[in-house]
């Protein structure tokens, strides 16, 4: 798309969308929302980027191999946080028993490990949504081995 208005508006609006997504991810345990919805919002902003600036530029920003690493890595972080509970004698994904600091209810730094899980999920979902969109408009994943 060669429309200057669209490009300018997109440039302005994308940071705000992403900020809102980050807000939702970080406040997942105190207010509505969480990793998935916030990640989906960030993913939408990345899709908007692709729609306006074309797939080549979007791919230069987040290449396929990077997003692959982010996706696997996000899940790995999730599992790793779960294993911390296992290693410290509690059950898998144990929260309080593991000794995560609980903080003060109602603030961001509370609820033990849940914010960490939310961040891992959020990053993974955002990247997955983006790469799924790329996959659909391109058809094939070009793997660069």
């Amino acid at each position, binding site marked *: 798309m060669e429309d200057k208005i669209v490009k300018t508006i997109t440039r302005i609006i994308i940071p705000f969308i992403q900020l809102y997504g980050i807000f939702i991810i970080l406040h997942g345990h105190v207010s*509505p929302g969480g990793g998935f*919805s916030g990640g989906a919002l960030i993913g*939408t902003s990345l899709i908007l980027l692709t729609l306006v600036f074309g797939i080549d530029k979007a791919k230069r920003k987040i290449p396929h191999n990077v997003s692959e690493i982010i996706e696997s890595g996000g899940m790995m972080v999730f599992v790793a946080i779960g294993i911390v509970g296992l290693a410290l004698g509690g059950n898998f994904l144990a929260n309080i028993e593991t000794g995560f600091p609980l903080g003060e209810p109602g603030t961001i730094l509370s609820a033990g490990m849940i914010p960490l899980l939310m961040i891992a999920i959020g990053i993974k979902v955002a990247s997955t949504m983006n790469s799924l*969109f790329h996959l659909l408009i391109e058809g094939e994943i070009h793997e660069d081995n």
Partner: protein
Amino acid sequence: MGIVNVIIIVFLIVCAIAVARTRDLLSAVIIFSAYSLMMSVLWLLLKSPDVALTEAAVGAGITTILFVAVISRTRRYEK
């Protein structure tokens, strides 16, 4: 249940039937997007703001975009 709830449900059913009957796939997808948005309003009414937020972001946002992307790659009208 309030009257708003009933109106939303009727709207949802009408939208669903419209999605099934419309021959133009792009219109069907747009109607589906409106359907999702209405669904998220209904979920807000039913006191599940979490779900409403997610449905608005995912159902009305990403799903629609993906459908439109696929339609642009395949074809628009149903035979």
